[in-house]
């Protein structure tokens, strides 16, 4: 791992427009290394867009994203990992999916098999290692996608609704993997609209509303005493948001 960290992250005046609509609207965000950050917000708040902007998958219409004071280059992006909202598994076996990512990342040939096996085991996918990734169950597919990105040992892990449409057992398996990465020193930035999950995982909460950061607080403060009216409504489950 390189000496210089990718963090802190600074987004300033970030804007993203599509189809004449301003979806991210002058967003400022500062994230430090350390706490697990959960980005919360209702549908359409721009959570997923924000994550893709931070990861460099989308180019902002305005404003800037800086990781440790520098715009993200290819090298920087390779030090991050992202679990997309709908991860794409390649049309090959589960194990081959892991090996593909490791090889693409330039991991030495001698290490590829070992690391793939390690993460298959951690994700509980040993039994299905040889099966085509696309015929695995939804939970297995998600675990495989997460294992694939974790095997690359990212310094920053961005997760976009990692457990949406998963049953509780599968969601727990995903959260376990996230905690493993967290303990290994990976900065976790997780987008969700699952409040229970946010309470379990968050050490810091960023609340997004209509393309802006409305509130950023430590988790207990956020859930105990949200400062903004929108966050209060969201936490209380009011539908008038």
């Amino acid at each position, binding site marked *: 791992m390189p000496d210089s960290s990718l963090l802190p992250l600074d987004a300033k005046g970030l804007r993203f427009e599509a189809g004449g609509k301003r979806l991210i609207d002058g967003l400022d965000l500062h994230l430090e290394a350390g706490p697990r950050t959960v980005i919360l917000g209702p549908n359409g708040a721009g959570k997923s867009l924000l994550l893709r902007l931070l990861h460099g998958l989308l180019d902002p219409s305005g404003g800037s994203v800086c990781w440790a004071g520098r715009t993200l280059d290819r090298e920087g992006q390779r030090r991050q990992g*992202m679990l997309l909202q709908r991860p794409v598994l390649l049309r090959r076996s589960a194990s081959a999916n892991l090996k593909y990512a490791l090889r693409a990342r330039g991991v030495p040939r001698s290490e590829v098999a070992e690391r793939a096996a390690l993460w298959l085991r951690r994700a509980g996918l040993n039994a299905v290692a040889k099966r085509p990734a696309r015929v695995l169950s939804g939970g297995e597919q998600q675990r495989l996608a997460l294992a694939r990105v974790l095997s690359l040992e990212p310094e920053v892990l961005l997760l976009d609704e990692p457990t949406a449409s998963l049953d509780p057992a599968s969601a727990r398996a995903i959260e376990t993997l996230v905690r493993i990465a967290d303990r290994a020193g990976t900065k976790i930035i997780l987008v969700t609209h699952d409040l229970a999950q946010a309470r379990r995982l968050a050490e810091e909460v960023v609340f997004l509303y209509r393309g802006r950061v409305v509130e950023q607080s430590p988790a207990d403060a956020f859930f105990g005493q949200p400062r903004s009216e929108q966050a209060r409504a969201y936490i209380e489950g009011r539908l008038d948001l």
Partner: protein
Amino acid sequence: MTLTPAPSYSVLGITGGRFREAPTGKGAMQDFTSAFGLAFELIFSGDRDLAEIVLLSLRVSMSAVLIACALGLPLGSAIAIARFPGRSLAVVLLNALMGLPPVVVGLGTYLLLSNAGPLGALRLLYTPTAMILAQTILVAPIIAALTRQVVEDLHAEYDEQLRSLGVGRLGTIQTLLWDARYGLLTVALAGFGRAAAEVGAVLIVGGNINHVSRVMTTAIALETSRGELALALALGLILLGLAVAVNLVVMALRSTAMRAAYA
């Protein structure tokens, strides 16, 4: 300029006249019925000339498809993922080239290979190589255009994932081609269908010379022009059977591979 050399008398080793019918309405019906019998007779009598023609057809068309794939798969997928000015024009052009008339391709290749042409020194005219070249020109745009479509659709799904994994441009093309492999098999079959069915290009550059450049389609054209309608039809049936057989083999391979591993 004579393009078609004088036809030999014993086509396929079956005496002319035996099946000759005046192409009247009644005769035409009989042609149909006798064509089936004749097709069977030709196949099961182990006619050497027929085998030669069938094998040359397969050799020419399959070689052309292989070369066209070698060119069209990378070209099509490069266009699929590249963004450059004039791209949509390039796509329109590529799609339009799918409709290249075989005779025009034949003529162009003929001019290229004729003694006065730029490649005249190679003395390839009226050889199977010339026929392969002409069919490659015919089929490559089809492979490239359909590959472009297939790969572009897949790229829409894969793009963010591959970029997030840090896969480079070349790696992206390789990955897309591999993951689209079953769809691209159908693309290759479309190319083969076009090559095996066309007559204009191979006739002009091959010349339909017996034992040298006669293939199924040129033989059919010849027998039709000689009034051997039943024989022409029989050859047509065999050609059709051949196309079905090739498709069956490829599809069988495909479904075995898919069952075996990758959905």
